C-alpha cells in the first residue's frame, strides 16, 4: 500500500475491516463518531452490516448478538457512552462472547469537555462493570498504532473469547499522520476456535487445554444456551460451587496464562536509566520527546510505552523499578495507572505528572519531573 495521510478514527475503522469486522452498532458521540460514519459507508459493500442503535446499551447488546451469530463485531463510543456499556461488558465477559469496544476518551466526568482529550477511563475500563472479570485493554499513541491495535483487539477477542477495549483518546483519534498501511493479506487475522465434535458433545464452556472453549455460532445445529447467570459447562445456570469455582479459575487463567502474548510495551534507553518515564496513549508522545530532551541534557532517562494497559504489565514495571531510581508516570487524569505503578514499584519511586483539564501534558512538564 502507498503512504496515506490519515486520521486516527479512520485508521481504527480500517483496522477493524482488515481484522474481519462485519458488524458495527453504535450511537453518535464525540469524539468517536467518524468511526461509525466510515463503517456505515464501508460495511454494506463488504456484505457487512451497520446499525445506529437507540443508545450505547443497545449498541453493545447488538454487537454481542451479532457476534453470537458469527460476525466479528465492534462498537465505538466515548466516556458517557462507555459508562452505559458497562452492563453489557460484564455480560460479554460472563458469556465469553468476543467483541471489541472502542472508547475514544474525552474529558469527564459527565458531559465534561466533549471535544478535549483525557485518559480518565483507565480504571473504568478495568473495573467499570460489576463483579470480578477478566478484560484486555489496549491503548494506541499514534495513527499507525491505532490501526495495528484495532486488529490486535479483534484477534485477542477471538482468540481468548473476551471483550477487548481499545482505549483511544481524542488526540490520537483526531490527529492526522502519515501512515503506510500493510496490504490486508499481510495482516495476521485470528478467528475464534471452532469445534470438531458433533453437537451432542459440544459444551460451550468446557475446560480445555488452552482454557478457551470453542465457540460455535447460533444457527449451526448446536442449539446451546447462553446466560449472564453463572453457568455450567453446557451454559445452563448453576449455583453449585463446584461449577462456579472452576469457571472463575478458567476465565482468569485464559488471560493470566497468556501474558507473554497479551502484554505489549516498548522500551527505549531503559537499560541503565536512572529515571524511566512510563506512558501510554497520546501522552506517550510528549513523554518520548521529554526523554529525548532529557538525554540531550545528559540525564540518564529512559522511556517505556505501554500498549497493553490491562492486564497491567507488572513484571515489566517491576524490572524497570529494580534498576531505575524513579519512575515518572504522566497521564491525562489525576493519577489512575500511576496507582498500579506505585503498587508494583513502591510509592516513593513514582512521580506523577497529571492534568485533567482537557489539555495535553507537555514535554516540558515531564522534563521538569525528570529533572526535579
Amino acid at each position, binding site marked *: 500500500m502507498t503512504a496515506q495521510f490519515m486520521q486516527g478514527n479512520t485508521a481504527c475503522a480500517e483496522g477493524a475491516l482488515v481484522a474481519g469486522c462485519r*458488524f458495527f452498532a453504535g450511537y453518535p458521540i464525540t469524539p468517536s463518531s467518524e468511526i461509525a460514519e466510515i463503517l456505515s459507508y464501508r460495511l*454494506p*459493500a463488504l456484505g457487512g452490516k451497520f446499525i445506529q*442503535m437507540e443508545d450505547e446499551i443497545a449498541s453493545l447488546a447488538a454487537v454481542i448478538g451479532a*457476534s*453470537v451469530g458469527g460476525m466479528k463485531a465492534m462498537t465505538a463510543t466515548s466516556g458517557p457512552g462507555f459508562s452505559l456499556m458497562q452492563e453489557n461488558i460484564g455480560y460479554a465477559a460472563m458469556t465469553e462472547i468476543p467483541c471489541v469496544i472502542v472508547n475514544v476518551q474525552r474529558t469527564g466526568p459527565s458531559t465534561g469537555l466533549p471535544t478535549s482529550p483525557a485518559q480518565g477511563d483507565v480504571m473504568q475500563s478495568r473495573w467499570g462493570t460489576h463483579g470480578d472479570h477478566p478484560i484486555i485493554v489496549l491503548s494506541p499513541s499514534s495513527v499507525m498504532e491505532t490501526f495495528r491495535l484495532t486488529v490486535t483487539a479483534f484477534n485477542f477477542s477471538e482468540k481468548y473469547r473476551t471483550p477487548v477495549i481499545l482505549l483511544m483518546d481524542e488526540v490520537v483519534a483526531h490527529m492526522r499522520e502519515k501512515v503506510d498501511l500493510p496490504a490486508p493479506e499481510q495482516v495476521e487475522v485470528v478467528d475464534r476456535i471452532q469445534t470438531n465434535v458433533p453437537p451432542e458433545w459440544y459444551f460451550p464452556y468446557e475446560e480445555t487445554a488452552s482454557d478457551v472453549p470453542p465457540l460455535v455460532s447460533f444457527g449451526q445445529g448446536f*442449539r446451546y*444456551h447462553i446466560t449472564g447467570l453463572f453457568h455450567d459447562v*453446557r451454559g445452563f445456570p448453576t449455583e453449585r460451587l463446584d461449577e462456579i469455582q472452576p469457571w472463575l479459575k478458567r476465565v482468569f487463567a485464559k488471560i493470566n496464562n497468556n501474558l507473554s502474548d497479551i502484554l505489549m510495551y516498548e522500551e527505549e534507553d531503559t537499560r541503565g536509566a536512572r529515571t524511566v518515564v512510563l506512558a501510554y496513549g497520546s501522552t506517550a508522545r510528549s513523554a518520548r520527546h521529554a526523554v529525548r530532551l532529557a538525554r540531550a541534557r545528559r540525564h540518564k532517562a529512559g522511556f517505556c510505552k505501554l500498549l497493553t494497559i490491562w492486564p497491567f504489565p507488572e513484571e515489566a514495571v517491576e524490572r524497570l523499578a529494580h534498576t531505575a531510581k524513579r519512575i515518572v508516570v504522566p497521564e491525562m487524569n489525576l493519577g489512575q495507572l500511576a496507582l498500579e505503578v506505585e503498587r508494583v514499584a513502591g510509592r516513593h519511586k513514582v512521580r506523577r505528572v497529571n492534568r485533567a483539564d482537557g489539555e495535553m501534558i507537555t514535554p516540558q512538564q515531564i522534563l521538569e519531573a525528570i529533572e526535579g
Partner: protein
Amino acid sequence: MHTELREKHEIYDYLRHSKKFPVMWCAGCGIGIVLGAIIRAIDRMGLDRDRVAMVSGIGCTGRMPVYVDFNTMHTTHGRALAFATGLKLARPDMYVLVVMGDGDALAIGGNHFIHAARRNMDLTAIVVNNNIYGMTGGQYSPTTPLHMRATTAPYGNIEPPFPLCELAKAAGASFVARSTVYHATELDRLIEQAIARRGFSVVEAVSYCHTTYGRLNRLGAAVDMMRWLKENSVTLAQAEKMSPEERETKIVRGILLDREGPGYVDLYDEIIRQAKAAENG
C-alpha cells in the same frame, strides 16, 4: 384425547431434559402456557429448530429459553430486543423470538421496544404481561392497573399503565395481537401468524401472578385469576359491539394490527445490493 396426547408429546420433544427441570416458576403460573403455545406454533409451522433462536431478558419470563431446545440466550434486563437485533442482522435466515415480561419490555426495555418497532426489525416479540414484577417480589410495573396494590405501591398505584399493544402499533410494528393464557390455542395461532409476518411483530400474552399481585390484591388463587381472564376478555368482534366505556373494562383479544410490507432486514439487503453494485460499477 388422541390430539391431546400427540400435543403433549410434541412439547416434550422440544424441551431440554438434560438438566433444567422442574421449572423455576410457581405452581399455577401462566408462563408455561405461553411456552407451550410458542412450541405448538413452531411445531405446526414445521420450522427447523436449528434456525430458531429464543432471546430473553431478566425476570420470570426471562427464564423461559433455558427449557427449550433452540438456540437460546438469556441476556440483560430490558435489552433482549437489542441483542436479538444484532443476532437477526448476523443471521437473517433465523427466526428470532424475543420473550419478555411487562417490566422487562416496557420499563427498563421501553426504549428498545419502541425503537425495535420503529425500525420494523424482523423479530417476534412475545410479552407475557402479568402486571407486576414477580421475580423480585411483587413491585408495581408499567402495566399495573391504577389503584391496585403492589409491594412498592402499598397505598395503591397512582401511575397509569402503558397500553402495550397501542404502544407497539403507534411505534411502527407490523403485526400486533393479544390473547390470554386461558385461551391457549388462540395464543398459539396468533404466535404462528406473528412469526410468519415480516417486520416487527408483537403478541401480548395476558397472564397473572397469583403469588404476588393476586395475593396483595386479594384476587384469589391461580384458578380464580384464570377464570377472571376467561370472564373479562372478549374477541375483537365482540368488542366492536360494545360501548367505549364497556370496552375499556375488557381485555380485547385478536389481531389488532396486520400490515404487509418489508422489514428492516429486507431494506438493509437492498442497501447491500446497491453498495456492492456501486463498488463494482
